[in-house]
C-alpha cells in the first residue's frame, strides 16, 4: 500500500498532502481568530452577567441564552444564508460577493466566535462567582470604580480559576471549525473528504486528518498547561503538591 498523501493530485502538480495542509491552515486560522474574539466577548459578557445593574445583567443573560442554545451549524446557516437577505440590498449583495474563501470564512468566524463567546461567558461568570465576597467588598472599600474592580481584582483571579475549563472550550472551537464545511469552507475535514472522493483511500485520508486533530488537541493542551503554570499566583493555588513539599522542607525531610 502506497501513501496516497505523497502522490500528485489528478490535475495539477500539487500533492494530496498540500490539500491537507491547506485545510489545516484554514482550520487553524478560523479557530485562533475565533478564539481571540470569543475570549474578548466572553470576558465582557461574563462580567456583565455578574453586574449589579439589572439591565446589563439581563442583556448579558439574553446573549448567553440565544447564542449558546442554537446549534453551531444553524448559527452558521443564519450568518451565511439569512443575514445577506435581511441586510439592505446593496450591503447584502456585497456580503454575498466576497471572494470565495472569505464568503464562507466570515460567516463561519461570526458563528463560531459568538457561540464560543457565550460558553466562555458562562465560565467567566462561574469564576467570578467562585471568588470570596470579601474581594468585591475590599475593592469597594479602597474606593475602586466598578471597572477597576473587575479589571484589577476580580477578573485576574477568576481567569486563573477557570483556565482548565477554558482549555476544553479552546479544544471545542478547534473541533467546531469542521462545521464550516457545511457552508463551503475547505478546512481540514472537508479536505480529507475531498481526498477520499478523489482517491478512495478512505483509511489514509481520514486517518491523516484524525492524526492532525489529535496533534492540535495536544498543542492546545500543552499551551494551556503552560499558561496555567506561568500565571499561577504563588501560594494561592489549591493544589496540594507544592505545599506538601514546603512542609517537608521545613521539617528537614
Amino acid at each position, binding site marked *: 500500500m502506497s501513501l496516497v498523501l505523497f502522490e500528485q493530485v489528478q490535475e495539477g502538480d500539487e500533492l494530496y498532502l498540500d490539500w491537507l495542509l491547506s485545510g489545516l491552515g484554514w482550520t487553524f486560522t478560523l479557530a485562533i481568530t475565533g478564539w481571540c474574539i470569543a475570549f474578548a466577548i466572553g470576558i465582557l459578557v461574563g462580567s456583565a452577567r455578574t453586574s449589579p445593574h439589572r439591565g446589563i445583567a439581563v442583556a448579558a443573560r439574553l446573549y448567553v*441564552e440565544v447564542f449558546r442554545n442554537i*446549534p453551531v451549524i*444553524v448559527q452558521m446557516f443564519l450568518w451565511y444564508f439569512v443575514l445577506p*437577505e435581511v441586510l439592505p440590498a446593496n450591503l447584502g449583495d456585497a456580503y454575498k460577493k466576497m471572494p470565495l474563501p472569505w464568503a464562507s470564512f466570515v460567516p463561519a468566524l461570526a458563528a463560531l466566535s459568538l457561540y464560543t463567546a457565550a460558553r466562555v461567558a458562562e465560565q467567566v461568570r462561574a469564576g467570578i462567582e467562585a471568588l470570596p465576597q470579601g474581594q468585591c467588598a475590599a475593592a469597594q472599600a479602597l474606593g475602586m470604580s466598578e471597572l477597576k474592580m473587575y479589571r484589577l481584582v476580580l477578573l485576574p483571579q477568576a481567569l486563573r480559576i477557570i483556565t482548565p475549563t477554558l482549555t476544553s472550550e479552546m479544544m471545542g472551537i478547534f473541533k*467546531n471549525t469542521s462545521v464550516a464545511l*457545511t457552508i463551503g469552507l475547505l478546512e481540514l475535514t472537508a479536505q480529507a473528504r475531498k481526498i477520499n472522493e478523489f482517491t478512495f483511500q478512505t483509511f489514509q485520508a*481520514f486517518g491523516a*486528518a484524525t492524526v492532525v*486533530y*489529535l496533534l492540535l488537541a495536544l498543542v492546545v493542551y500543552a499551551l494551556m498547561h503552560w499558561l496555567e503554570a506561568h500565571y499561577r499566583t504563588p501560594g494561592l493555588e489549591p493544589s496540594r503538591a507544592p505545599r506538601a513539599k514546603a512542609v517537608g522542607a521545613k521539617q528537614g525531610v
Partner: protein
Amino acid sequence: MGPLDFSVVANALPFLLNGLLFSLELTVIGFAGGLVLGTGLALIRHLEVPIAAPIASVYITLMRSIPLIMVLFWFFFLMPLILMWATGASRPVPIGPVWTAFITFTLFEAAYYAEIIRAGLKAIPKGQYEACKALAMSSAKTYRLVILPQVLRTVSPILLTQTIILFQDTSLVYVLSLTDLLGAASKIAQRDARLVEMYLTVAIVYMLICSLASQMVTMLRKRYAIPSRA
C-alpha cells in the same frame, strides 16, 4: 427579498415535526446507548482492568479530540468496509446514513459520558467502599447498589447538560443528508426558496427547546441534590 411569509412553515409543519421527532429519537438513543457504554468504559478505567483500561483510555481520548463530523464520516465510509471484511462479503456492505447516525452518536457520546462518570466515581469517599466490604457485599453488588446510584445522582446535572449538547449536535447529521429538524427545514427551504423563514424558525425551535431543557436541569439539580453534599 420579498416580505417574510411564514405560511411556508405552517404548510411544512408535519414534515418539520417528523424531522424533530428524528432529532429526538437520535438524542434518546445516543443518551441511552452512550450512558450504558460510557458507564462500562468508566468502570473499566476506574477498576484499572488490565489491557482493557488502556484501550478504553485511548478510545476516550481519541473520540474527544476529533470533531463529530469527522466521526460521522469515519463510520459512514468505513463501516461498510469493516462489515465486508467481517462477513466475508465480496463488496462493501452499506449500512445507510440512519444507522451510521445511531451508531456514531452512541459511540461518540459514550466517550463523553465515560469521563463525566469517572469524575463522579473519583468523588465517592473511600468509606463507602469500606462499608460495603464490612457488610460482605460482592464487588458487583457494591457498585450496583451503593456506588453507581450515588455517582449517577451527583453527576446527573452534568450528564443532562451534555445531553442538551448532544441534542444540538444531532443537527450535524445534515452532512449525511438525513431528515432531522434541520435537514427537513433545509429541504423545504431549498424547494420553496424560503431560506430566511425556515432557518429562522429552526433556530427559534432549537433555542426554545434547549433553553427550557437547561432551566429544567437547574431546577432538578436544586431539588434532587444529595442534601449533605449540596
